[in-house]
């Protein structure tokens, strides 16, 4: 694998970025470029695949190989890229509509197969490019062009869906958290197998304040908890709160760090039960690597069952001839 010293500029194309001013995508783009520069993989060995939607324009702005495909199918296209050339670093980028609605089936399967792609789910809980309809992650009551009386459908929890699909890596971050997002991209990349990174994102035009205060630095500290492997699950501006896991109910009790530091649960990325409990938590919203438990990835699993080897003409002759032949004249 070729690695060199790179800067975010090495991943920046000459294309004018066409997202709305103030869109969370800008911050994500910035963080992803930073992460890729730090990873040091040559841009020529990196492929960005996307579907349709605002987020899916991502490849045009990354100076790597890129393929902007069709709505919902990027995970399937990315799987094909890995089938033909497992050495490429593949990032699959899409929004909540792309990944969880029209492409929900492909997300399920790319995760269960553990295809070594990095799935960046840019979740703004709204359809942006089609001008503001409720999405599969919109909270009940979301007023939108398609739901003037408020949406009635239960939103899907992407991290829980991923865990249920057999994902071996599930993480969350927030577009504006530039001290966290690049690190999460790098963790996703380091995981051999399918990595789902859900990035909470704001849509300034159709769903401003999409995640109710998550984008305000101050409130975010109260609203979120950054799970770190081997560290106590604390949150708050000064880490004054902590989570105590209750195995009987599968939920958490919020405790005071000063009073009950020893009761605060230590995060373990390999603990599936803990990961599902964190993924379900409405308050605080769990960020960070919720689950990381590596297993043999798709390419390796098939390679050891049916190793690909090129066919030469002698092999072909044997195959063509088969077992039952006769000779004429």
């Amino acid at each position: 694998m070729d690695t060199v010293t790179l800067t975010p500029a090495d991943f920046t194309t000459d294309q004018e970025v066409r997202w709305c001013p103030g869109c969370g995508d800008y911050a994500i783009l910035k963080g992803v470029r930073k992460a890729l520069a730090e990873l040091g993989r040559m841009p020529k060995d990196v492929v960005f695949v996307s579907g349709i939607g605002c987020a899916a324009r991502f490849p045009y702005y990354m100076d790597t190989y890129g393929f902007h495909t069709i709505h919902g199918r990027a995970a399937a296209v990315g799987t094909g890229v890995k089938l033909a050339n497992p050495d490429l670093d593949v990032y699959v980028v899409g929004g909540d509509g792309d990944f969880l609605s029209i492409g929900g089936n492909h997300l399920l399967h790319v995760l269960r197969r553990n295809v070594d792609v990095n799935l960046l789910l840019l979740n703004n809980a709204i359809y942006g490019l089609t001008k503001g309809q409720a999405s599969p992650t919109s909270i009940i009551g979301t007023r939108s062009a398609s739901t003037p009386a408020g949406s009635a459908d239960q939103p899907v929890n992407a991290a829980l869906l991923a865990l249920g699909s057999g994902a071996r890596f599930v993480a969350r971050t927030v577009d504006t958290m530039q001290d966290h997002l690049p690190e999460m991209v790098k963790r996703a990349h380091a995981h051999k197998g399918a990595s789902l990174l859900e990035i909470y994102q704001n849509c300034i035009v159709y769903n401003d304040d999409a995640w109710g205060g998550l984008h305000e630095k101050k409130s975010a500290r109260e609203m979120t908890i950054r799970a770190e492997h081997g560290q106590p699950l604390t949150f708050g501006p000064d880490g004054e709160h902590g989570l105590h896991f209750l195995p009987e109910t599968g939920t958490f009790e919020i405790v005071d760090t000063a009073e009950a530091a020893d009761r605060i649960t230590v995060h373990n990325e390999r603990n599936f039960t803990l990961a599902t409990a964190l993924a379900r938590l409405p308050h605080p919203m769990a960020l960070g690597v919720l689950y990381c438990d590596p297993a043999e990835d798709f390419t390796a699993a098939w390679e050891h069952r049916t190793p690909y080897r090129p066919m030469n003409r002698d092999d072909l002759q044997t195959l063509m001839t088969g077992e039952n032949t006769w000779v004429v004249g």
Partner: protein
Amino acid sequence: MTDLLDKAGSQTHETSTNDRMVVRFAGDSGDGIQLLGSETAKATALSGHDLITLPDFPAEIRAPVGTTYGVSAYQIQFGGPEILTSGDAADVLVAFNPAALKTNLNTVRRGGLLIVDKGSLTKRGLEKAGYDADPTEDGSLAGYRVMLIDVTGLTAIAVAATGVGKKQAGRAKNFWALGLVFWMFGHDRTATRNWIEARFKATPDIAAANIAALDAGHAYGETAEIGADIAFRAAPAVRPPGLYRTVTGTDAMAIGLSAVAACSGLKVTYCTYPITPASALLHALAKLRGHGVVTFQAEDEIAAVCAAVGASYAGGLGVTASSGPGIALKAEALGLAVAAELPLIAVDVQRAGPSTGMPTKAEQGDLTMAVHGRHGEAPACVMAPATPSDCFDTVIEAARIATTHMTPVIILSDAYIANAAEPWRVPDADALPDITPAFRTDPENFQPFLRDPDTLSRPWVRPGTEDMIHRIGGLERSSDTGHISYDPANHQQMTDLRQRKIERIADAVAPAAIEEGPDAGDILIVGWGSTYGPLKSAARRVRQRGHAVAHLHLRLLWPLPRGLEEIFSRFRRIVVAEMNSGQLLELIRAQLLTPAEGLNQVTGQPFRAGDVEAHLLRLLED
């Protein structure tokens, strides 16, 4: 247009001559009829006869025993010097139960031989088949020769010594019948014996029972007084010298994809989703276990084609396959491959539609979908194999076109071609021409959509190539830089370029030519796909009656090959015969303004040469 359906049952059957024979096996779908048929085909081929088969089975895997809708059949025509069809009507029907007799009697010529398992003619069996009385006793089989043999009982006796249970003994009766048939036609049993031994290696008692049944059926023919006139020796095939084997269309397509891998060095990436009758191709390729071709069973049809598109983008050759309903689901992604100008092969093993239709029956109803069935102006190449063995050549040519012209190629096979078997001369692997995809590695003046002046195809670049980083996608792109462009003039130009690129494929392949018959005359019968054999056979027979009738067969359907108009101008009538309601006919009329007429049949069954012959004769009287 003429519909043959209303005349079904009263057609002039292809008459049996003493150089060929049509045999049909029919029984419960659990009776091993298809196995019986394929073993007969193998032994027939090894005995030096030409042959074509017609497997004819229901979609249900194991319908209730003894019912008419659970009947599976397999027909084979063999002999010499050349066999073009699976036969219009059977000379011999082997019926394993009353339901099989009832549903297949109309496929037997008058005077034909019915071999019926006497042991199956029970009251319950007759009732299940809907017979009020035993047809072998009430005179309803008058006009046929009937041979009642207790296959069930004789098989039980034959296998008794091997110690297998009653259930296994019952399952061996197809081998008993096979033994008798082999005796009738002088076929050698060795290959079938070897097959049984290999197949049932883990269960030697079952192998022994099946071989005992095979030998007992053969011995019955030799010793029982069933009339020596039953035995028949067909004429040998007259074929060019060489090494031969039998292939089904599925075999030939799988071997062809392996040849594409060997001749191109590309990683052939076969992505599909299970569907009848295309799944057999997945099974054949999966057996290669990653040798030359990798297989991927996707979560759905759309994922399958998208993975194939991704594989081609990454520098492999993406191949996807399905049948009509699945191809419909792939339409959007095929449009992406057209827009992104990536090579791709999409095999459509057509079956009777619309919707679920008749999944195991053949039809040519997807031509219009293949040519036009995408959103926007999305031209692609469409080809069709003529015979089972032609699948080999067609898929190799499709790979060459796809990689040279940077386009999806849709191959229209069908349920008949996929399942039917015929002899195939094994090619010399070293003599197969290279397929040389021109991956671009030179960054000098590189733009992803700057075209080759001859083919108008864009360069193919493997991701990972130094100094060639670029992005492609479904959005319209500038004809020079490849960047997103909504410019009106550019869209017109790109639309025209995509169209002209496909048109130029016609310059790279052989022009249209008459398959057989005079250069000019009264009727030119035009076909495509699996109708090749029946149409060729029908035209031959009409010529033998002294008429100037020729046959033209299209392998390239879009773009249409060069030279068609000129050939058409030399015939008084152009008849386009298809197993649909006139889809090629429409294309020809629209593209060439030729006042062609249709001959159409949508029954799920191949044309009978006799029906086509009769139709042509009627036209000649006009």
